[in-house]
């Protein structure tokens, strides 16, 4: 008998059949914890794990008549697109995940997003804003609003500075974007705005490769263009590298942004006062005047010892949205979870506007905030006007 038991156990081990609890929610997540996107990928990991821990500490998620614990399988794609898709497939086929939390970075999420459709598994990303990812599969959802609207928000903010008399049209623009869907969407947002606002003109528009090592040739072209505004769309590593070269070259513009980058703690630490007055549009800010944001900020700091950045917040809220949908579905059946995501209306959310919903393409479309760095490591929320914590400084004062 003992021998039979041992043989049985051995057979299970050899066949690699994992023993799975019946009453648990299996969530798979694939994030770039190592590699080029690891800085923010690591932040997403921290936020994802915190959201799951909080759900489990509260006794689990109510699914129909049962309270179920969340079993999170979080894998590292090493910032490699092929591996990213492979691991999502692995989580679905081998871990039998009920739903997938997508990664960070539009190019990585783009690779992942082809997989859920094959298996009919709900997929919710909190780290990709490129519109090309959404609308192709009914299983793919995302909490980051379109990058195009991020650019549009920045242009509206600049236009408001013109109306206040802080900036004067005509204004010329140097527009630099990464050569990705993310960058293309940003450029489209700026160019679409300019079409209906004659006071602006793009005098130099260039694309750059992700993780470029030398920005001097690109910035030399910017210097020669003598633009008034410097608008770029960069990932964190590129923002740090490009802005370091920008500062070393002594470039100056009336206003400067790197899209969603600006107030990131890592960049301010790396670049110091050189980041003062950089403005950024984000999917979230800890300066949002909602009580739930303050509570989240305190909880996050108590749990991790660090203040949450926008990516921590969106990673956290993405998990909460998925768990809210599962609870609303009252079932772990993929189709029911998907239907719940389609109709989700998460009130008192920490996102701008306080209500998280998804559009027909599966992508959230929420308002953006604009922040501006101030000297001494301070950051002010400067847009929307009714939530601002400080006045925008424009043009950037000469030092």
């Amino acid at each position, binding site marked *: 008998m003992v021998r039979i038991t041992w043989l049985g156990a051995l057979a299970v081990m050899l066949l690699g059949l994992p023993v799975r609890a019946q009453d648990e929610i299996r969530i798979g997540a694939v994030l770039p914890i190592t590699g080029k996107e690891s800085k923010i990928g690591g932040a997403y990991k921290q936020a994802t794990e915190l959201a799951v821990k909080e759900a489990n500490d509260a006794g689990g998620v109510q699914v129909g008549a049962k309270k179920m614990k969340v079993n999170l399988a979080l894998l590292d794609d090493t910032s490699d697109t*092929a591996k990213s898709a492979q691991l999502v*497939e692995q989580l679905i*086929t081998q871990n039998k995940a009920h739903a997938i939390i997508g990664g960070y970075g539009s*190019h990585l999420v783009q690779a992942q997003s*082809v997989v859920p459709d094959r298996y009919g598994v709900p997929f919710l990303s909190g780290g990709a804003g490129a519109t090309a990812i959404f609308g192709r599969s009914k299983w793919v959802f995302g909490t980051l609003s379109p990058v195009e609207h991020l650019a549009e928000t920045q242009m509206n903010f600049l236009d408001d500075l013109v109306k206040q008399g802080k900036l004067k049209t005509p204004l010329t623009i140097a527009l630099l974007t*990464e*050569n990705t869907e993310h960058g293309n969407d940003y450029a489209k947002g700026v160019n679409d705005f300019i079409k209906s606002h004659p006071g602006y003109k793009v005098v130099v528009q260039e694309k750059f490769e*992700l993780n470029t090592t030398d920005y001097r040739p690109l910035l030399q072209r910017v210097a020669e263009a003598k633009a008034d505004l410097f608008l770029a769309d960069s990932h964190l590593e590129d923002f740090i590298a490009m802005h370091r070269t920008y500062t070393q070259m002594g470039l100056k513009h009336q206003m400067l942004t790197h899209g969603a980058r600006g107030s990131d703690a890592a960049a301010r630490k790396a670049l110091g006062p050189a980041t003062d007055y950089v403005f950024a549009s984000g999917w979230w800010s800890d300066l949002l005047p909602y009580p739930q944001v303050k509570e989240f900020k305190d909880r996050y700091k108590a749990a991790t010892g660090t203040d949450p950045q926008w990516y921590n917040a969106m990673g956290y809220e993405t998990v909460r949205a998925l768990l809210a949908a599962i609870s609303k579905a009252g079932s772990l059946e993929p189709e029911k979870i998907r239907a719940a995501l389609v109709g989700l209306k998460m009130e008192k959310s920490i996102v701008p506007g306080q209500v998280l919903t998804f559009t027909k393409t599966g992508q959230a479309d929420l308002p953006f905030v604009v922040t501006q760095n101030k000297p001494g490591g301070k950051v002010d929320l400067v847009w929307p006007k009714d939530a601002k914590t400080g006045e925008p400084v424009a043009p950037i004062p000469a030092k």
Partner: protein
Amino acid sequence: MTALLRRHPALVPGVLFAAFLLLAPVFAQRGMLNDLWNMAFFVVLASAWNLLGGFAGQVSLGYSAFVGIGAYTTVLLANAGWSPWLTLPVGAALAVAFSVAVGLPTFRLRGPYFTIATIGVGEAVRVIASGLEFTGGSSGLRMPQGTFDFNANYYAMVGLALLTLALVAWLQKHAFGLALEAIRQDIDAAEALGVHSTQAKLTAHAISAALVAIGGGLFATNFQYISPGSVFDFRLSLTIVLMPIVGGMATITGPVLGALLFSYLQIKLLASPTLRDSYLFIYGGLLIVVMLFEPKGIVGLWERLIGLRPRRRAQPPVGEARRAS
């Protein structure tokens, strides 16, 4: 077949494994089939590279370029309305043309200079693909909808792996394979004996490029999305080289064993929350052990264990030793 297996009993495990791969879709779950697809893909890459890198001793670190050429050809033509199957020979033809264009100048170089040049070629192709509009830039491209058929792709990849092995084994036994071996051992002596070394290297390069490009095309169809970061990645080139080195270069079974080991490590370790960051470390460690103690890789270790070969101190390849003296 039975007579063949009687004459070559070493083929029995290979035939059994091939039968297992071909029958797997009947009984195996999708997760396991994905792993087997991955293994077959690595077998294609490692065995095709071995033709030039192993048999001819020309260590190229630019093979991801051929994966990329095959993959991009498939995606671009499929988006233009072509059947993905018809794109495979086009990708192979383009890879052959590219291999000749790259080979003509680089095969003038020897040893590390050739290897360094191939790194440059691989990186140049990646940078160009990242900068072009029609390749989708750094974001890459998706296959059109309705082009995914896992079972067909699985059989195609397994078939390609078996074809690659059969072709390499056949070439090894013929004058062409002997010419490559002569080039590896001593290129000057080989030329003195009448081997046209540049032509032989170009041919090996072209054959392996075509096989790798077809693998790249199937990769694109299976993953439905490619980007320069996935198919032109230097890490992929490095992986392609590591597999035959660990398994045993200039043998038929060595690259297969290296590919099986590498894909197993990658699949299992990446899926393990505690070991996910260590697979490259483990593979790197394995590589160091192989280089130090058994330059002929797993195959060499096996031969030594079963007494086919006496234990000897690790020696550099003949060509290297000759250059050193």
